[in-house]
Structure formats: structure tokens, C-alpha cells
């Protein structure tokens, strides 16, 4: 089972992000469960959502306490929420930022951060460029597909097209594709 925790703020599409992940996995014939943290969601308030993906039906109903991947949609949450709580070794961390881990000062937040694979993705910039709104969720999912391979890009794009109406879907598809390409290049650079 692969477990993902998404952190963000109300209005950034955290819950939709988890939903899109689960639909992408479903399209690939896998079992998936997505659910929000059930807070009193308000614009700007810290929000969490979770997604589990597995090859068999998922019975577990606890929040994702030990994520294999963490998607952080808003870097300012570092000061407010215990984001790295329960993170599994070698977990993949995607953070919406234009700076790297050192510049973000992440070492102060996560002990042993070097044992994680941390990737900064300029998701808000990509969203503004392609979608025209500050919704970093879809670009982060594109990067997630590239960096983890847990879901494929084609199924993510199909999930986006199923969720959003025509033109909005295509703008989000472009944002996901751009983030996927960016993250793929970054990954190749690391691997090389």
C-alpha cells in the first residue's frame, strides 16, 4: 500500500488533489481511497487530505499517519503544522516552492531530512501560467507522477478531464504536463 498525505490551505485544492490521485489509480485498475482531514475547512486555514493506493481493497480508515509521500502545497505551513510527522524513511516530499531545501531552512523542521527525497516544484507559478489561478494542486500531482511513478501521467490527465469542464480541464492538463516535464528533467539530472 502506498500512502500520501497532502497539506495545504483551504482554497488550494487539497481535497480535490487527493480525489484526483485516487481517480488516477482507479483508472489504472487499482484500489484507492481518498478522504479529507475533516477540519472545519475555511479559506486559508491549514487543511489535510489523504490518499491510499493498493492492489487490494482498502479497509483501513485511520488518517495517513506514516506517509510514503508528502505533498506540501504551501511552504508557509512549515511554521504551523508538524508536516513531517510519521514520515517513512526514503519518503518522497514534494513542496510547492521556488527555492531548494537549504534555502527553505527545512533542516530545522525535519530531523534527518537528508534521508528523504525532497523536491521543490514551483507549482503556484506553473498554475498561474497555465490555469491562471493560484491553485498548486494539479501541477504538484504532475510532478508526483514523474517523481514516484505511483500513478502514470496519462491516467492523471484522464482524471483531470473527468473532473473539470472542457477549457478548465485543458488548462489543468497543460499545468500537469508542464510540472511532469519539469520534474522529469530534474530527476534525470539527479540520476545522471
Amino acid at each position, binding site marked *: 500500500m502506498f500512502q500520501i498525505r497532502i497539506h495545504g490551505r483551504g482554497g488550494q485544492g487539497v481535497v480535490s488533489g487527493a*480525489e484526483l490521485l*485516487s481517480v488516477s489509480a482507479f483508472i489504472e485498475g487499482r484500489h484507492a*481511497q481518498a478522504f479529507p482531514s475533516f477540519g472545519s475547512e475555511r479559506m486559508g486555514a491549514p487543511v489535510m487530505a489523504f490518499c491510499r493506493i493498493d492492489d487490494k481493497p482498502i479497509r483501513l480508515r485511520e488518517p495517513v499517519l506514516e506517509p510514503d509521500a508528502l505533498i506540501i502545497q504551501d511552504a508557509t505551513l512549515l511554521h504551523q503544522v508538524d508536516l513531517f510527522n510519521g514520515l517513512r524513511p526514503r519518503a518522497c516530499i514534494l513542496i510547492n516552492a521556488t527555492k531548494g531545501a537549504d534555502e527553505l531552512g527545512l533542516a530545522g523542521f525535519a530531523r534527518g531530512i537528508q534521508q528523504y527525497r525532497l523536491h521543490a516544484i514551483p507549482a503556484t507559478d506553473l498554475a498561474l501560467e497555465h490555469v491562471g489561478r493560484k491553485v498548486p494542486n494539479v501541477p504538484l500531482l504532475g510532478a508526483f507522477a514523474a517523481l514516484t511513478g505511483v500513478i502514470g501521467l496519462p491516467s492523471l490527465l484522464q482524471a483531470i478531464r473527468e473532473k473539470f469542464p472542457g477549457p478548465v480541464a485543458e488548462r489543468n492538463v497543460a499545468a500537469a504536463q508542464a510540472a511532469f516535464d519539469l520534474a522529469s528533467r530534474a530527476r534525470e539530472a539527479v540520476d545522471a
Partner: protein
Amino acid sequence: MLKQIEGSRAVAEAVALCRPQVICAYPITPQTHIVEGLGEMVKTGDLAGCEFINVESEFAALSVAIGASAAGVRSYTATSSQGLLFMAEAVYNAAGLGLPIVMTIGNRAIGAPINIWNDHSDSMSMRDAGWIQLYADDNQEALDLHIQAFRLAEELSCPVMVCMDGFILTHAYDRVDVPTQAEVDAYLPPYLPRQILDPREPVSIGAMVGPEAFTEVRYLSHHRQLRALGLIPQLAAEFATAFGRPSGGLIRPYRTEGAETIVVALGSVNGTIQEVVDEMRAEGTAIGSVSILSFRPFPLAVLREALRHAKRVVVLEKCLAVGLGGIVSDGVRKSLSGVVLHGYTVIAGLGGRAITRASLRKLFEDAGRDELQQVTFLDLDADLVSFELERESRVRRSGPTAEALLRRLGTVASRIG
């Protein structure tokens, strides 16, 4: 057809496939998405032959459903928490009149303090109102139970509540198999009411009944529910044949063969319990679990059969009978009359507190050593409780309890579990 959809959407689609003719509802979290979905389907015409009636309160919602049902049409509503309490008088009336309304409860705590999250306090408060109460383990079951519920309600002329955990199920995206209209039509025939308000053949429904027959009216309600003990497994079996998957029934035993410890619970927590049972079974611990799917009628006989060979029974409840302990435990103990074993009540998941594998694991290990109190509050913050008790003993005008606890805790936004 397999779909990856929200639990509320799955239920809305199931209800629509049952061809309701009147739906009336008033929004309340976490049930709202269900009736929003149905409202949309009525508006677009996807759900034909149905009138969606917006009302000004939950009391009106169920009252309109009562009127519609008495006029001979298939009626549906849904609510949660305080909404169910506001309906209370009509809840009793629907059952007393024997009207086969189906109502979804998106289970949520009851205030004060105000809390929108999941537990079973709402539906449990209406457990003796005369409705049949079914509890879903997961979203597929929530979907399936609605189809069975209309059939059950109409065969018995008795209203049915389908209870599903608020947020945990209503807001979770899961894979569900949504049947076709033809499949549902073959299982659920058109509604043939036993009683109907018809100007051509006028009758009264809801007459005053004195001591001469009130007991008999009540006895017949009880009798109907006892009949349901036979009908519920029968309808579940027919459902399994027609739809190709098991769903519903009275109880669901899980790995109870040879189990020394058996955990009993209602609703979605059974999934997490089964995970822990598998973990502990793999290590050689003789543990199993039983999910109660029908809480009213209460399945005394089958439960007794499932539990009587155990050494101990742990009843995990998402509801508290203040001053007593458990509610489900009472029924479980009644089912075990004369059987000697240890019985433990565990209050868990109140107001949305997460019930984790780790906590359950420790709980079941303690139970296995018979080191549990008769009533245990899972993951109770004992320090917080002591702090408040001490504070209240010091200060006469100690002020409101809930606010004092929150001040002591400070910000909770940083918590994960």
C-alpha cells in the same frame, strides 16, 4: 459499473436507482452532499418522476416525508446529528404509523459542545423510536443497503434508517460498483402501500388510541421488527444472488473461529479492526471480530452464536451512555445471558477522534491479558482530564469546561492524527 466516487455520491445514485417519488431534505453536515446530489438529479431530469421538496427544517423534512408516504409514494430523506434530534417527534410518528420511509443518517456527534465530526450519538439517540437501523461498514455497503432498505421497509411497512459514518464514509472517495437500473428494478418492485390516503376511499391514519389497544399497536411494531430478523438475511441473500456480491445481513463475523477475544463494533471502524485482527492472527493471537449490521432489530440469537465460545468480548462503541457506559454493550450482554465470559466496553472515536491501528492493537493486547477496565475510553487524554478536575476543585466559578480544555491544549491545527 465500477466508479471512483464520494460515498455521498454513491448513496445518491443508489437512492435514485430506487425510484423515489418524493425527496425532502434540509441540509446539515456531513449528510448534505447526498441530498445535493439527488436535488441535482431531479433538476436535470436524470431522476424522473420524483419531486424534490425544499423545506425549512428537519422537522418539516420528515413531516413531508410522512405525508408523502401516507399518500402512497416512495419517500426518502437524510439527516445528521442535531438535524435528527430536531426531527425526533416525527421520527417516532413515522414508525408509529408504520410508514416505510428510508432515511440516511450521516453519523455525527451531538452538541454541546458543537462538533461536526463522526460518532454514533445521533442515530443511537433514536434507537428505540421504532425504525429499523442498519449500519454500513464501507461505501459499497452503504450503497447496497439503501436498495435493500426500500425493499425491507415496504415489505414490513416500517421505516428504515441506513447509518453511515459521517466524513469517514460520506466524504471518502472509494471504488464502488453502481448497479444498473434494470438490476435494481428486478430486485425492488414498485411500491405497493399497505395504507394510503385516498379521497376516493377515505381512511384516517394516526387515530388516537387509548389503553385498550396501545400495547397491542406497540406489540405489533415489535413483532414487525422480529420478523425483520428473518427478512434481513433473506433480502441480503437475494441481493447477493442478484448483484453478485455479499452486502448487509444481521452481523458479519470475521475470523471468529477459535477466537478467544472477539471485538464487536458498528460501522466503518470494522475495516481498521479487521486489519488489526489480521496482524495479530498472523502472530498467533486467537482474535476475531463481529460487525453488527442490524442494530434494530438487535440480532440476539446470531450474535450469541458468534460470541458464546469466546473467552472475552470487547464492544467498541462510538457513543456514550453518560453515567452508564456503552449502549451496544447492553444488547451484547443480553445476547450472552447465562454465558460466562469477560465483557469490556470501549468508548472510541467520539466527536471524530481518529481510531488508529496502533491504539486498537494496544487495546486488544490489554484485553487479551484481561487488563481492561469494564469501561475504557480509548486514547483518553488523562493529563487534560486531571488538569480540569483539579482546576474545578480549586475554583468555584471555574467557567465553561470545553473552553478551559481548549485553552489548555493551545493550537490543535498542527496535529496530524
